[in-house]
């Protein structure tokens, strides 16, 4: 009986493992014989009609739109005309995207084109799981000629891992430069114009310069919370402090961009962080924002308390971009004007480029056609705007056709963010204040300073358990410090935070980071 039980237990365990092994097995779709060659015509390349499955991260609820089928039909009209392909759009709500894609990878499920990034469906994880098609020069030149011709080759370096390219970066603002965001209307009410604001901000100590405004608001009986403090402080000040983070802005492990030696540091032990944390403590104690910063991560502004709308006269921004969709949004929602002053240096980092990319499945039957579809999203203005804003004349009209400004006032179609779909620079402007901002953004990308670690991607596989231990309670230890509410003095609060990090294995992670950085630097020489 005992032996029988043992055999049964073994058999059941094997039965349990079997599906995993089956998932890993190479049950690949047969690869079609696609023509390759720079000089092929579209007729030669796209002779056969194919169907591609596109995993579409739905950020705004486009899939819930009652006339979604109309949008899909219009999309397919373009793709069938241009690349002889029908696109089967698998809508996945953004909040579920990463998890669903992970299971698709595990189950070897069929898909062709998908969005990858740093935050959603992480690119480096997908590469390490070997589920992405390596994009060879031959394929790229055949099926993405226009993108290859127009896109600066340096952007592909950010997505090159172990010598292979597995994704195409989606064009948008790549540069990371933090900024201070002002809601100009507030200040105009108090007779402070934009020129005065600009002149008051000292480029060397921009954050301290804000205290003049805070005191002025206090004098004018705005009682509390006019600074938008939140748990995203590291993201909003990381490039200002001069860091390039190896994992994320909140996770310890970074290099100083100005430091030529590429020494990996724990940013929470630096003078730069101490400076920011001290400032937050000072501002919190002075009453510039309230303890509510810890509730839901953001302080309710005075305006929010008064009118039920989330607004702050002053807050920090992670990325300053010309025109900016946030600015247009604020104008559209509340009719208010926001303006931003950049702080710190504009830096191009690996993660800032790899944050939004399109990838092709290793299981794709027609990888060339999948690339051709990505090319279309990168080059076809009509297609991109159809997906993001709907059909001209039905979902939107021209406000100013010459300058490509659309009017979305009566639109019911939720659409999607262009940076989840394709080339942002092809999207039409949603507000006239944005005119010309795409050209300006391209220039900023081109002229940005390169981080010394540009092109390096940290492989976290060997330190996963330490990372999980730190992540388990990182926010709970970090947020009080970021919101100026740590125990005792700032030094004590920072020491407490670092104690937590080292107790959970930070040193092992930092050593591994340094080892990989050194290896990468050596391989470049």
């Amino acid at each position, binding site marked *: *009986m005992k032996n*029988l*039980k043992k055999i*049964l*237990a073994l058999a*059941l*365990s094997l039965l*349990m*493992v079997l*599906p*995993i092994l*089956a*998932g890993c097995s190479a*049950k690949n779709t047969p690869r079609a014989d696609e023509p390759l060659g720079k000089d092929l015509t579209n007729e030669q390349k796209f002779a056969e009609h194919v169907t591609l499955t596109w995993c579409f991260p*739905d*950020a*705004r*609820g486009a*899939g*819930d739109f009652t006339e*979604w089928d109309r949008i899909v039909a219009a999309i397919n009209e373009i793709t069938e005309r241009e690349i002889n392909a029908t696109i089967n759009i*698998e*809508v*996945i*709500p*953004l*909040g*579920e995207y990463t*998890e*669903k894609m992970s*299971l698709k990878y*595990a*189950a*070897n*499920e069929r898909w062709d084109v998908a969005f990858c990034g740093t935050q959603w469906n992480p690119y480096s994880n997908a590469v390490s799981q070997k589920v992405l098609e390596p994009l060879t020069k031959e394929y790229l030149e055949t099926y993405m000629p226009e993108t290859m011709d127009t896109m600066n080759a340096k952007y592909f370096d950010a997505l090159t891992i172990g010598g292979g390219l597995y994704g195409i970066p989606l064009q948008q603002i790549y540069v990371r430069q933090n900024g201070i965001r002002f809601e100009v209307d507030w200040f105009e009410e108090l007779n402070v114009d934009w020129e005065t604001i600009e002149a008051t901000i000292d480029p060397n100590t921009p954050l301290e310069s804000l205290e003049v405004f805070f005191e002025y608001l206090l004098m004018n009986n705005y009682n509390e919370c006019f600074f938008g403090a939140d748990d995203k402080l590291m993201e909003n000040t990381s490039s200002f402090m001069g860091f390039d983070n190896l994992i994320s802005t909140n996770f310890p492990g970074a290099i100083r961009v100005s430091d030529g030696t590429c020494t990996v540091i724990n940013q929470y032990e630096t003078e730069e962080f101490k400076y920011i944390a001290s400032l937050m403590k000072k501002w919190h104690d002075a009453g510039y924002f309230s303890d509510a910063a810890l509730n839901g991560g953001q302080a*309710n502004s005075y305006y*929010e*308390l*008064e*009118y*039920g*709308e*989330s607004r702050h006269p002053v807050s920090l921004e992670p990325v300053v971009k010309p025109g900016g*969709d*946030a600015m*247009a*949004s604020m104008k*559209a*929602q*509340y009719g208010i004007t926001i303006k931003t002053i950049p702080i710190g240096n504009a830096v191009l980092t690996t993660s800032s480029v790899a944050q939004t990319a399109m990838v092709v499945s290793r299981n794709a039957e027609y990888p060339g056609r999948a690339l051709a579809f990505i090319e279309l999203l990168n080059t076809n203005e009509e297609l991109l705007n159809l997906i993001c*804003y709907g059909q001209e004349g039905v979902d939107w009209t021209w406000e100013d056709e010459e300058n490509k400004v659309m009017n*979305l*006032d009566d*639109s019911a179609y*939720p*659409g999607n*963010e262009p940076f989840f779909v394709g080339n942002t620079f092809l999207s039409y402007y*949603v507000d006239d204040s944005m005119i010309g901002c795409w050209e300006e953004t391209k220039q900023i990308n081109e002229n940005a300073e390169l981080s010394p670690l540009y092109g390096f991607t940290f492989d976290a596989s060997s330190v996963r358990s330490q990372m999980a231990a730190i992540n388990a309670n990182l926010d709970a230890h970090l947020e009080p410090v970021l919101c100026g509410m740590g125990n005792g003095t700032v030094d004590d609060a920072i020491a407490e935070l670092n104690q937590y990090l080292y107790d959970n294995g930070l040193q092992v992670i930092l050593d591994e980071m340094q080892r990989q950085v050194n290896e990468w630097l050596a391989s470049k020489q």
Partner: protein
Amino acid sequence: MNNKNLKIKRFFKKIDVVNLFIHLFFIVISLAILYPFISMLSVSLLSEKELLQEGYSVWPKNPTGEAYEAVFKNFQPIAKALLTSLMVCVATTLLTVMLNAMYAYAVSRPTFSARRIINFVLLFTMFFGGGASASYIVNVSWLNLKNNLLILIVPGTMGAMSVIIIRSFFQGLPYGLVESAKLDGASEYQIFFQIMLPLSTPALGTIAISAFIGSWNSYYAPMMYFDYGKATTLSLYLQRLLQHMEQYKNSASLTGTLADVPSASMAMAVACITVLPMVLVFPWFQKYFVKGMAIGAVKA
């Protein structure tokens, strides 16, 4: 004076002091459990402005139904999701009760020689699960159950705990019942359906309510196994509604209409709507539930 003392003495004689403290203790505990539900209901009736200005309160000053209005704005999909949920819950409950009872009856019979092995197979699943990836691979790649409502019904029906509870109950019934029924010429099916099942309502009631609640609250399976727009259960629909609303609020080119949706009160309204059917169903099964759990606890 004497008369007064006598009255007090009589009063304390009438009430059992220990009992009084026990009652007070449980009243306090019940209020502590009830309080979050009352707050949930009251916050769902608050306007966003009142919520921000006054904070959370048990009695809203100006109750408003705007959060419920926002949830029920699109009635058709919510009604469809509700129907799907009900259908899945009822099917899961019926199937769970029937399959587990049949399994439990077989392994409860001392004359069934393979019962130890079958029990072992069952217990094995209590300690080792397949995990998300393996289950997904089996259900999608092998059984091809993606976008099929059966995926919400079938995998959850058999449960080791449920079988143990019913098996313990069957074992508690006198075996003479089975033997005398046999002598009277009853078949196995007649014994099971006409004698054992009607006698096991407490155990079956417990399994039924656990299955119904589990199925009602299930959010992960519909999310993972259904493509967008194919089928949605109520809990998933409401969860997605909240997600989208947050995204709407933060999204770029929003044109105004949804910006005023009260997010905190809407989240609470969603919680109330999800909980309501359970609140209605639970009292019917409660007496079985308590009894049935006790059976499982003592005799498992």
